[in-house]
């Protein structure tokens, strides 16, 4: 303890375990010394059922935490929780607890406490420091099981608070929100504990080893936590606060990584961006995108009272093509209908061609299976021709590919090609400028997002230049799970083997036809799924720009040959959980 100069400033010294500055009021979490009374123990069967429920809750929470950590910190850090999941279900933990309940008649809570204490003690007796620290992970799992048994949620913390406790855990660190400027101060802990690793990855300032912190700092006291120096300043004055406020900045963002994503054995995957407006083109470039895998054109058609004119569309497409040239830009024709309704389509319009005579258009009952995508475009031929004219006029300004959404069979692609040919002829005859003379063949892609298109991938690949697999819709159609309906969210599993097998077969069909295959659903942005797509031989992953760096790192860690073996294992799985477990365990730390 030091007192600095004339300021009445108390400075506690510990070890900085995660750099950064946090300032806020202290929230004290005392160790769970006196656990709340358990409900009176039931019979063995009731206690076993209570434990089974707590185990299931814990698994679900850990899976959610792993996903959140993967998004915020990365795959390596998420492995901590994949490893926790494996430990939780281990015969020595879950198995021992069950035995204490069923064989010895202990209450569920007592059984958890005994099994955790015994197991932690066995790890603490090991000679290796790294193995000893697994005792902390086991205690963390035990605390989670007890919280679930007692019906307590993970603690939530107020914004701007500094948590002060005897020790912390990976679960606790993962529950903090780095954007709320929380800091953590503990009396115990190790710089290389999983909790500290996670704090560094999430940018949460952490000072450990502050002896007597709980007795010296009162709840509600204002403190500054300096995770670099390991200092905790108690009740700082305004000048000190101001001085630290200036330093409270996150490390500078790294420059965009423009080098390509290549596996260790030289297989290159193009990383592209999904964008939905002209201004997102800049974000795509800043994130290191090599192309735009999908420009959704719905932004031109929705939230308005009249359809966009050819000129308005031309200006938008031209702006994106110019901004990204010479990179390829895949522009998807309007995927309106479905859950993306354009009000003007159902309104009476002075242009008779745009008046929709089909009552099926507004079937609110099952819009995902309704008149949408290419179906609507082929029905509303004038609207479609207008979009094609704008696209073909803009084509010479950059590197354009056209993508057709919601295709179910070859006839739709043939019809679209006829229309493109017809529009091209019109343009060549009209007097729109010299560039229209240069119209060569347009690169045309087909979205594979219906099970029908996946099954007919070989036939579609013959008709198209590339296949782009939309895993979001494909998942919802294959598993019959509306992706906007929370009630069926657990059935919506992009890594379900039924989906994966269709995706793999589609990619295979494209490769056999000498065409390339891209993935443009949300699973393209999942670093965990990246090796599966590498194994399939996917040539392009297209995702939200922010996800590009993490996926790039994931691809660079793999060899295509290993990814192929992993894929063959994943394709043998019978359920999504098996696939997730396989992916998590193979990368478990």
């Amino acid at each position, binding site marked *: 303890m030091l007192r600095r100069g004339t300021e009445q400033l108390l400075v506690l010294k510990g070890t900085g375990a995660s750099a950064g500055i946090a300032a806020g009021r202290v929230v004290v979490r005392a160790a769970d010394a006196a656990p709340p009374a358990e409900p009176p123990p039931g019979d063995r069967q009731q206690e076993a059922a209570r434990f089974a429920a707590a185990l299931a809750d814990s698994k679900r929470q850990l899976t959610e935490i792993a996903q959140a950590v993967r998004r915020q910190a990365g795959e390596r850090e998420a492995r901590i929780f994949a490893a926790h999941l494996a430990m939780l279900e281990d*015969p020595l933990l879950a198995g021992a607890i069950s035995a204490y309940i069923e064989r010895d008649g202990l209450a569920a809570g007592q059984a958890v406490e005994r099994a955790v204490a015994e197991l932690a003690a066995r790890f603490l007796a090991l000679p*290796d420091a790294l193995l000893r620290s697994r005792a902390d992970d086991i205690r963390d799992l035990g605390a989670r099981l007890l919280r679930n048994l007692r019906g307590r949620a993970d603690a939530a913390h107020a914004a701007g608070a500094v948590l002060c406790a005897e020790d912390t855990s990976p679960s606790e660190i993962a529950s903090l929100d780095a954007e709320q400027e929380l800091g953590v101060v503990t009396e115990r802990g190790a710089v290389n504990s999983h909790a500290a690793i996670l704090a560094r990855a999430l940018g949460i300032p952490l000072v450990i080893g502050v002896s007597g912190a709980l007795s010296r700092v009162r709840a509600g006291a204002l403190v500054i936590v300096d995770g670099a120096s390991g200092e905790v300043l108690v009740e700082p004055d305004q000048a000190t606060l101001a001085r630290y406020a200036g330093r409270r900045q996150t490390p500078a963002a790294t420059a965009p990584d423009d080098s390509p994503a290549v596996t260790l054995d030289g297989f290159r995957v193009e990383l592209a961006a999904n964008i939905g407006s002209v201004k997102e083109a800049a974000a795509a470039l800043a994130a290191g995108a090599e192309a735009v895998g999908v420009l959704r054109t719905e932004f031109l058609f929705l939230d308005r009272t009249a359809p966009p004119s050819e000129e308005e569309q031309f200006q938008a497409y031209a702006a994106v093509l110019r901004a990204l040239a010479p990179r390829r830009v895949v522009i998807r024709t309007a995927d309106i209908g479905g859950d993306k309704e354009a009000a003007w389509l159902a309104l009476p319009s002075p242009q008779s061609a745009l008046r929709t005579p089909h009552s099926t258009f507004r079937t609110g009952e099952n819009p995902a299976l309704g008149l949408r995508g290419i179906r609507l475009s082929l029905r509303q031929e004038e609207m479609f021709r207008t979009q094609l004219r704008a696209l073909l006029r803009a084509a010479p300004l950059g590197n354009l590919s056209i993508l057709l959404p919601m295709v179910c069979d070859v006839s739709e692609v043939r019809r679209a090609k006829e229309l493109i040919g017809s529009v091209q002829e019109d343009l060549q005859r009209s007097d729109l400028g010299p560039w229209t003379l240069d119209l060569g063949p347009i690169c045309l892609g087909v979205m594979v997002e219906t099970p029908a298109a996946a099954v007919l991938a070989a036939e579609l690949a013959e008709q198209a230049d590339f296949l782009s697999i939309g895993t979001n819709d494909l998942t919802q159609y294959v598993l019959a799970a509306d992706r906007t309906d929370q009630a069926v969210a657990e059935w919506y599993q992009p890594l379900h083997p039924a989906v994966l097998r269709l995706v793999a077969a589609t990619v295979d069909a494209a490769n056999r036809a000498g065409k390339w295959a891209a993935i443009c659903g949300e699973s393209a942005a999942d670093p965990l799924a990246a090796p599966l797509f590498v194994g399939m031989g996917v040539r392009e992953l297209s995702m939200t720009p922010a996800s590009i760096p993490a996926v790039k790192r994931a691809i660079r860690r793999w060899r295509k040959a290993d990814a192929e*073996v992993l894929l063959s294992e994943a394709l043998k799985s019978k359920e999504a959980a098996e696939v997730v477990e396989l992916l998590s365990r193979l990368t478990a730390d």
Partner: protein
Amino acid sequence: MVSRTVTILNRTGLHARPAAIFAQAASRFSSTVRVLKGSQQADARSVLALMLLAAGQGMEITIEAEGGDEAAAVTALAAMLETDFDREDTIGVVRSPP
């Protein structure tokens, strides 16, 4: 019952990540698989039991399997331990028996 004694070659021994890979590989076989180190023994499907063996690089352990695919299990799992199967740039995928 089939058994084989091998020397652990991978750098970190049977610590968390390699133990998880090994346990998962072991669970693909229908046979009961045990790992023995000195007087200690572990269920090969238990990550925690494997870690508690504290089996480091260069140590000798014995793999014992009993069941329908015991020979395949011992061959595959022993081969795994005799390679540096948890290197960052590779993955230790053991194919299931045919």
